[in-house]
């Protein structure tokens, strides 16, 4: 995700409200930082340039079983 931290902050704040969490601004900032880290790692499999390419079928996600 290349969204700015402000955009992530907005998403996190809204999603926290949706879930019914009640956090201080400082806590929201910390949770946003954690979410930004998740988003950065998620880029590996979400961006079109991901290696291997993220050209996965838009169909079902299989339940993983070895």
């Amino acid at each position, binding site marked *: 995700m290349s969204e700015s931290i402000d955009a992530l902050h907005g998403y996190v704040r809204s999603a926290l409200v949706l879930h019914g969490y009640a*956090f201080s601004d400082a806590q929201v900032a910390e949770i946003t930082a954690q979410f930004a880290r998740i988003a950065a790692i998620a880029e590996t499999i979400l961006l079109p340039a991901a290696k291997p390419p993220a050209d996965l079928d838009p169909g079902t996600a299989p*339940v*993983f*079983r*070895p």
Partner: protein
Amino acid sequence: MSVSALDIARRVRSGVGSAVSVLAETRARIETCDPAFNCFTATTFERAQREAAAIDARRARGETLPSLAGVPYAVKNLFDIAGVTTLAGAKVNAENPAAAADAQLVVQMQAAGAILVGALNMDEHAYGFTCENTHYGATRNPHDPSRVSGGSSGGSGAAVGAGLVPLSLGSDTGGSIRVPASFCGVFGLKPTYGRLSRTGCFPFIDSLDHVGPLAATVSDLAVTYDALQGADPRDHACAQRDIEPVGAAPLLPAGTRIGILGGWFQDWAAPPARRAVQMAAEVLGATQWCEFKSAAPARAAAFIITGAEGGALHLKKLKARYADFEPASRDRLVAGSLIPAAWLIQAQRMRKIAYDEALELFRHFDVLLAPAAPDYAPLIGSETFTLNGQTVPTRATLGLLTQPISCIGLPVCAAPIWPEPEGINLSVGVQLIAAPWREDLCLAAAATLERAGMAHA
């Protein structure tokens, strides 16, 4: 130094020693030494006394005793023990009622004659790689108490590494058996996803949770693994497979092809971890390098699945008791609960791609060799450490080499290597990775390293 479980069982079976006397020695050792390491969060000596007396009574009646007769062991405190509250490392679970029954693997250990002596410390809810638990204290590394034991099964690794018990059980979602085995200098087995029953274990990430044994020798590990096998319809992930016993002396078949994983697995390894791989490769006769190109995306998938499932699992309690959660991981859990569904679905799709690539690798190799941890165990309290000249966050980095493998459920044996035999007395593990359901090859490769004196507790 640890005592071999199989030696204990032989002594008990032959009558050279009794299970009750072994238990007395074990209890004394735990009471004397554990305060220095903080492995145990509960002991079960009264129960152990009953179990040990029952074993001795069976011998007195002339019964044939099972494989682990009289062998003391302990379990990570996410395994249910009847009459003990299952903490899963969390303060928020401390007021829960005691477990009504044993976890399935505890039942199977009892059937094998093993004697349960207690519950072991872990990172809260298994979400961590250092076993620095704010509520129950840090478990210290048995070879250098200023360093972490690794996690999340830190108590399980340290209790065996310190010689308090010869066997323990742990769980591994992203590396939680292999990282502490690596740091504490013991062997650990993460079997194939679905091989062993998780019934009666406090869940962390259902899609990724594995359970398995840790031990001081490969023979102990293999015989314990055999005792733990068996289908269990109560665990939806547990495969309906027959028991495939490995036995006490697994041997690598002639011509076994061993590949050394490069790329990601070298990029994130410090010199000691690279040296450990090199030393193991020489013993195994491995010269061919290969690459698992999906390592980074598989790790990313594991990270997203872990965040999303973990956050969802604890959502209700996080809302009610946020302050009582582990400060080191609670914000990660909350952030994980906000992960969009599309990311999670993409992560699950990625697992299939990575799995297919791994199966292709196993057309060319039987066993893959990689480091189990990036470096030696870091110092307790260190937020960062230096890896190949870069300052990296400790908690986020320790699992980088194990997470890609957990993501696709392959069996792995972690074997402790001591890269500086003349220098510092610290181990770093190697991963011996095989195709699904080939735990026998992982254990046989570890046994080869052990027989050569290369891997040992």
